[in-house]
């Protein structure tokens, strides 16, 4: 492919930006249909209980109430709110462990019933009229406790007590031999908190059933096609009679709706079927907090064998994650934790064991990074511990051990590109690494520190899960093109990036591209937006479709121009012979000529993506107030090898957003529970995600080590921004005050206590 791009690599105005800037963009929460009812959900106040009796008669009698749904009048089909059913490849079996409503509730916030009424107020009033009698069941909140013999069982499990799915085991080389060869062995356990996606638009869906039974669901899902499959399965409908789409925008995702938007879609649809009217279900912010997936909390143990010169000889990681009350992505996330945690460094002998454990807390699922930030907080905190023990510079020990293309690793695909070392060097320069250790006087109460950490990630889910994409590129009679891809744009710039790729391949102006997206009815199957995959995988499909269309166009044009297709090229919509100057014709003319003779050029892209590792080096500069324990990040630098930045401004946006979320993960974000299983941090005022006041200068540096498998060399970038942020900050805090933290977030109180203990 030619390197001199006309559209790719340019900061073209994002396709969604104008509508969003004008307040004209439509989101699920904005939809209003004729006759539409409002659905509200009754949730369990108990962390584990059996519903002995449920009486909905008073609620049904309330004027304005059109339907009340419970486990007694809704489908008894088990499913998983996440898209795992679509992705899991035999012999592995997806864990399907929940119903829309069940007779047992397993966490505070679990669905008990739902009401559809003519107004939100009436629906809320009706919820209070539903009489439920509960029999309380024993509870467990910690994953280590939940694995014990005498813990209550939440679900039937094959792999172990309260273990959903299969335990993950990854192995390379001879781990025992590796430890035997080491001069020193380090082993540490780290504890990770519950983080929340806290996307701005809460979970929402609007369901409509036509008189002939056709279903349409507008929702906040990141994956319309897999969501359609889940809904069709629950309600026993042909996939082709269910349409799932975004309307067309989603107010963020960060993994919280890979699959269903919690249960907004099936609840809205169940109510719409009962009421025979459209129903809109919008979670309020508290519901979004307590009853939709979080990041996995848990424990990560890292054991590393190392030679005196700093060479790693063996690494073993064990990850035990808290699944919460249902599986969601809990069978997969521990795998990514291990696979990524092991793959950032080259080490000949490696092993990982990990799994999740059910507890009576809010289900944990996918969140940006998907296990990787948990693993890398542990791995790269420990690398700094090792460096100090060996009196090595943290940069040096990493330089010595980082994974490099061509070396073996545990992943089932080869490492074919890496700009990691360049990322480290550029980042070190930007943060002024040489200042490290020289910033404090003995008596300073505000102490400064610099730290760094590195990481990698994936560019899609293959081959951990099924992953493939389809796309159409249809040439219109005027030579403009229509792209169709089932992928949503949740703010990550996907539709712009895909359109750029299509324009580049077709050799036409960006303005000539139209795109249909996130609609199961008008697009072929496509997994959706997750796993940093849309640019890489959906992009590959769009490129393939554009190439297919172009091939057809060239064949047709060659006939018209009386040349061979192989000698044709196209630029700015003009097809020309690279051999004879005077032979040229516009794409529009060719398309119209073909149309008049009964033909349209329809390019189809059908691809199974390969995979490629993006790389990143994060540098943090912090200030610690040693009298209060307050940690402030004063600067953050993130240098990322993104392969090829199709749209640099979008890439920077992904990195900066990830950094901010990572700063929150490191310092303040955490959901805690009280002893009755209730979330304490269940709203924006109590959940300490960063505001503009808390974000320092962020510097995103783009490094482009193009990967041969990615479209135009691109690699995934959606999640990398927070993979190593917490580790970099914790390492900077260590540099400032000499205290190592094995648990985040580094709240004022945690740091203060540690400072007191050290005195």
């Amino acid at each position, binding site marked *: 492919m030619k390197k001199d791009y006309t559209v790719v690599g340019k900061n073209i105005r994002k396709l969604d930006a104008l509508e969003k800037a004008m307040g004209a963009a439509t989101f699920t929460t904005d939809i209003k249909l004729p006759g539409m009812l409002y659905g509200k959900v009754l949730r369990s106040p108990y962390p584990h209980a059996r519903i002995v009796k449920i009486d909905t008669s008073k609620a049904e009698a309330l004027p304005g109430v059109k339907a009340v749904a419970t486990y007694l009048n809704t489908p008894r089909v088990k499913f998983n709110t996440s898209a795992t059913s679509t992705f899991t490849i035999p012999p592995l079996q997806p864990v399907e462990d929940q119903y829309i409503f069940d007779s047992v509730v397993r966490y505070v916030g679990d669905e008990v019933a739902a009401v559809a009424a003519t107004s939100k107020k009436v629906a809320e009033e009706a919820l209070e009229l539903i009489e439920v009698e509960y029999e309380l069941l024993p509870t467990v909140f910690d994953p280590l406790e939940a694995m014990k013999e005498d813990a209550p069982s939440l679900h039937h499990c094959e792999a172990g007590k309260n273990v959903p799915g299969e335990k993950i085991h990854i192995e390379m080389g001879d781990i025992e031999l590796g430890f035997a060869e080491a001069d020193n062995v380090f082993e540490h356990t780290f504890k990770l908190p519950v983080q929340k996606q806290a996307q701005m638009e809460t979970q929402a869906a609007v369901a409509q059933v036509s008189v002939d039974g056709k279903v349409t669901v507008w929702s906040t899902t990141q994956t319309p096609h897999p969501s359609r499959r889940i809904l069709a399965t629950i309600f026993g409908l042909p996939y082709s009679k269910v349409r799932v789409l975004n309307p067309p925008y989603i107010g963020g995702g960060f993994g919280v709706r890979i699959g269903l938007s919690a249960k907004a879609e099936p609840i809205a649809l169940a109510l719409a079927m009962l009421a025979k009217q459209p129903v809109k279900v919008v979670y309020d912010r508290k519901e979004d907090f307590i009853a939709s997936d979080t990041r996995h909390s848990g424990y990560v143990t890292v054991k590393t064998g190392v030679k005196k010169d700093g060479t790693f000889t063996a690494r073993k990681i064990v990850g035990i994650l808290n699944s919460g009350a249902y599986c969601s992505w809990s069978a997969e996330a521990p795998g990514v934790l291990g696979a990524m945690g092991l793959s950032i460094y080259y080490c000949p002998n490696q092993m990982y064991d990990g799994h999740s454990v059910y507890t009576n807390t809010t289900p944990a699922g996918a969140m940006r990074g998907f296990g990787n930030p948990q693993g890398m907080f542990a791995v790269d905190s420990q690398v700094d511990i090792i460096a100090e023990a060996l009196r090595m510079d943290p940069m040096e020990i990493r330089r010595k051990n980082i994974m490099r293309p061509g070396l073996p690793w545990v992943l089932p695909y080869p490492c074919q590109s890496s700009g990691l070392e360049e990322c480290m060097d550029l980042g070190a320069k930007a943060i002024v690494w040489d200042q490290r250790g020289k910033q404090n006087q003995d008596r300073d109460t505000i102490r400064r520190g610099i730290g760094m950490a590195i990481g990698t990630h994936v560019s899609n889910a293959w081959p951990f899960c099924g992953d493939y994409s389809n796309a159409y590129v249809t040439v219109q009679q005027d030579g403009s093109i229509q792209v169709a891809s089932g992928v949503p744009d949740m703010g990550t710039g996907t539709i712009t990036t895909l359109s750029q790729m299509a324009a580049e391949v077709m050799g036409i102006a960006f303005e000539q591209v139209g795109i249909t997206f996130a609609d199961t009815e008008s697009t072929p199957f496509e997994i959706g937006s997750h796993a940093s995959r849309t640019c890489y995988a959906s992009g590959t499909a769009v490129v393939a479709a554009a190439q297919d269309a172009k091939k057809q166009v060239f064949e047709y044009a060659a006939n018209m121009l009386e040349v061979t297709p192989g000698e044709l090229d196209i630029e700015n919509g003009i097809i020309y012979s690279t051999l004879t100057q005077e032979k040229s014709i516009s794409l529009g003319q060719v398309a119209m000529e073909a149309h008049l003779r009964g033909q349209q050029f329809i390019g189809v892209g059908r691809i199974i993506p390969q995979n490629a590792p993006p790389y990143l080096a994060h540098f943090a500069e912090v200030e610690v107030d040693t*009298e*209060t*324990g*307050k940690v402030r990040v004063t600067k953050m630098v993130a240098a990322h090898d993104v392969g090829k930045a199709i749209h640099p401004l979008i890439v920077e946006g992904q990195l900066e957003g990830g950094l901010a979320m990572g700063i929150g993960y490191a310092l*303040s974000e955490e959901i*805690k529970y*009280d002893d009755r299983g209730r979330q*304490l*941090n269940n709203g*924006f*005022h*109590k959940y*300490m995600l*960063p*505001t*503009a*006041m*808390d974000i320092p200068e962020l510097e995103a540096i783009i490094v482009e080590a193009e990967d041969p498998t990615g479209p135009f060399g691109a690699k995934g970038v959606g999640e990398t921004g927070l993979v190593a942020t917490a580790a970099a900050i914790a390492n900077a805090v260590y540099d400032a005050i000499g205290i190592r933290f094995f648990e985040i977030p580094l*709240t*004022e*109180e945690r740091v*203060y*206590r540690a400072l*007191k203990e050290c005195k």
Partner: protein
Amino acid sequence: MLKDYVLATSIEEALVCLKTYAGQARVIAGGTDAMLDLSAKKMTTSCLLDITKVKELKKIESMDGQIVIGAAVTHSEVKNSDLIRTKAPLLAEASGSVGSLQIRNTATVVGNVVNAQPAADAAVALMALGAVVEITEDAGTSYVPIEEMYLGVGQSKVDPTKQIVTSIRFPALLPGQGSAFVRLAQRGALALPMLNVAVVLSLCEDKVEWVRIVMAPVAPKPLRALDAETHLQGAVINDELIAKAAKLAVSEATPRDSALRGSAEYRKGVLEVLVRRALQQAVTAAR
């Protein structure tokens, strides 16, 4: 069940409304908390009596060395008032740290007092200023020191179904007097304080003529550190004295364990630091 919403244009009109509704109407200003309490069913009333359109309640005035802040004055207005910034800078600081700009643009300083939350930033500063609350009712007008306004957590002496707090007043700071407001919170905005401390003091040469130290949330209401104040009174200010006063202040505080905003132990530990810093800042400002 809420049936009516009255926009009063004068205090007289507001009083008539309260009388007509005979305990079934409730005074609101910015309404930021009231609307939430209503929808969460924490509060019921038949009528919301909105006083934000009463012109005389929207003033910040200086009268005979006293600063008077009307009941409809918002945190933003206080924060941006030149009068407050020069004559009661700690209040500008405190009002400026409430919630977010949008909240400060609607929520009122008086509302901060009437809500009777133990850590309300502006109320903590006002107590250090020795503020007095003007309460108007049918029977007439009375003046209550802010310290006597609290009956319990979230419970004010004012009955919003019968009485209207019309203003709050305090002496303007004079030369030789200094103030400070310091606050520890989990983030830079949209956060209640883990701790806040307000100090107002008067120095003559370097001798402390008088001092008021207020700490929160370390008791059911903003708490005066009386032992610390006594210790400072009449003494020549120095670092050692301040350190001792900070220690005394801590011994007077009884913070509770909060799962959200820090353990009692942590708050006690850090309180000493904040009191010390506040005293130091106030001394600097006074000099």
